[in-house]
């Protein structure tokens, strides 16, 4: 990227993780994962607590030693290099600002090892604080700052060292919703400006989708799927990914081909055409559809891929309605309908028909299929597509 080239930097901030494993005694926290973060990318590791994302991050930073595997920073394996010798910096979840130093002291902390003159140091600190919009705060103590401000100081402290890679461990977790949204935008902008590789860890899928160039969804020490936000959301390859990234209405049935290259999923008496996902699956399979893709229609609307049901609950979400519809067969599907000003589109107890468009219906493969997006919950390590 041009920013790097302008700085005359040959080191680009590319991270490659190969078969990385970390076991704490009997417990395997990270199970032989492979990941690739190209230079300048905003890469997020997303997953529930205990999935191994933080452990992986700490191994990249150097706070944990891998049990086996390699961590390549611009081609050099740093897995056994102590953290103070790696050119990666971390923004901690609790910020870890040194309480006995003021803001300027905190930000300047790492510069001591760069052998700069006092003036140069001062300038860089001032620049870093400007970057995070804390220009006048140099003399304040961390205890006097709000959460969001501490956050920025932590950021400035890391960025002032111009790392190739910045690691962020759920940095926005302790902030309230509005502040979080604001900082998400700021972080993204900052990253784009600086061109540094960001490795971001979070359990908040919305955050991951908003900010990332690519997302790796992790579960139980493995990577379930890695891809762009749109990919992992619209084209989840496993049930876990589908479920984690949003509401995933699931239909279980028997799959067969329909002659057109699509999947015909027989659910009870009905057959649904599914055009997405592992369409060549046969036998028992699941299909999912996102709630916003379901079309709520009048009761008894005819046509393919339709399912009658009764509205069990209609929840008002402000900008939309979430309908919980109990369909024939007993499942409850959730559908979103935008709030376009009309009164409740479907009242509780009303009978409706749900249209599940074939192009929105995605088949999830029950076993690993030989395709690019092929991860399986219980399968071997994933090589993410480049």
């Amino acid at each position, binding site marked *: 990227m041009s920013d790097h080239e302008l700085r005359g930097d040959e080191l680009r901030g590319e991270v490659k993780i190969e078969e990385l494993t970390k076991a704490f005694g009997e417990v395997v926290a990270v199970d032989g994962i492979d990941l690739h973060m190209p230079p300048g990318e905003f890469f997020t590791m997303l997953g529930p607590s205990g999935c191994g994302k933080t452990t992986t991050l700490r191994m990249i*930073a150097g706070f944990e030693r891998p049990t086996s595997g390699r961590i390549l920073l611009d081609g050099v394996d740093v897995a056994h290099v102590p953290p*103070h010798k790696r050119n990666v910096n*971390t923004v901690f979840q*609790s910020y870890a600002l040194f309480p*006995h130093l003021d803001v300027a002291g905190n930000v300047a*902390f790492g510069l001591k090892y760069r052998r700069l003159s006092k003036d140069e140091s001062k300038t860089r600190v001032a620049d870093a604080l400007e970057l995070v919009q804390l220009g006048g705060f140099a003399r304040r103590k961390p205890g006097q700052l709000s959460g969001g401000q501490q956050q920025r100081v932590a950021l400035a402290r890391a960025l002032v060292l111009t790392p190739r890679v910045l690691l962020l461990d759920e940095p926005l977790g302790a902030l309230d919703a509005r502040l979080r949204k604001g900082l998400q935008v700021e972080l993204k902008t900052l990253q784009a400006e600086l061109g540094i590789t960001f490795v971001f860890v979070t359990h908040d899928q919305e955050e991951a989708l908003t900010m990332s160039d690519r997302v790796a969804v992790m579960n139980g020490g493995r990577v379930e799927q890695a891809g762009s936000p749109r990919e992992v959301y619209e084209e989840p390859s496993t049930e876990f990914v589908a479920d984690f990234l949003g509401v995933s209405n699931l239909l279980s049935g028997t799959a067969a081909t329909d002659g057109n290259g699509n999947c015909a999923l027989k659910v009870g008496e009905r057959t649904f055409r599914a055009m997405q996902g592992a369409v060549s699956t046969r036998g028992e399979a699941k299909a999912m559809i996102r709630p916003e893709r379901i079309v709520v229609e009048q009761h008894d609307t005819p046509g393919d891929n339709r399912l009658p049901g009764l509205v069990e609950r209609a929840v008002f979400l402000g900008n939309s309605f979430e309908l919980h519809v109990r369909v024939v067969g007993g499942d409850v599907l959730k559908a979103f309908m935008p709030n376009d000003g009309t009164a409740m589109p479907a009242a509780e107890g009303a009978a409706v028909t749900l249209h599940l468009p074939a192009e929105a219906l995605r088949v999830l493969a029950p076993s690993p299929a030989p395709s690019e997006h092929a991860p399986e919950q219980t399968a071997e390590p994933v090589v993410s597509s480049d």
Partner: protein
Amino acid sequence: MRAWLRNPWGQPRALVVVTGGYILWSLVPVVIAIMFAFNAGRSRTTWQGFSFRWFTGPVGVFHDPALQGALKHTLFLAVICVAVATPLGVTLALGLQRWRGHGAGTVNTVMLLPLVTPEIVMGVALLLLFLKVFPGLGLGTVPQAIGQVTFTLSYVVVIVRGRLVSIGREYEEAAADLGAPPHDQILRVVLPLLAPAIIASAAVVFALSIDDFVVTQYLAGGASTTTVSMLLYATARGAPTPALNAIATVALVITLATLSLAFFVYKRFAGGGDAAVAAAMEI
């Protein structure tokens, strides 16, 4: 009366009486002893008026050579003890806290042993050590200092470790992340954060040293190495003057002043009153 006693919402009267009685029984004798330090006459048991003579007079604490000597020696030992035990204890606490692997448990146990060993055992052990293993040193100031350091070391370790545990590893990790090698992590981050605990433990060592008796007596080497405690022991049953009360009072004031100072320092920097009380209770 019964109702007053049985009132379920009121203070249980019996306990109030017992506690109040205990506190009085515990502290009043000492207050009386302090009072008699200001006695105008020579008696320690009959009040003869108020006077400063046992402090400032010719045979008072500030002039009598024997009393002066004891006081000076006591303070001298205390300062040396703090100067040696504090760094020794801090480094041991740091090392123990982060030590992974074999030996840590053993070292920890050995560190705790002085806290539970009866002082006479330590006194005899150190006496024999200095008589037989280090005869060149003889008995006297240096062995006294060494003995005091040996048993106060553990207090420093316990206090500092308590604070280390509550600080956690995060700041060290952050420092390492920013490029600080391990020794800088300690010097620039951990030690400043430990400062309140270090001060508190220094004060505790100071107080323990001033009040110490058995080890100090066992390793004493003559009149010039007498401390206030030893003086009290030697002359308490004789026919001394209130000068004895006076010197005890002076030592007490110094001890309490040091501790109060440390308490307020700790409170200001570390966690408020509760933390300080908790630290005091560790002992």
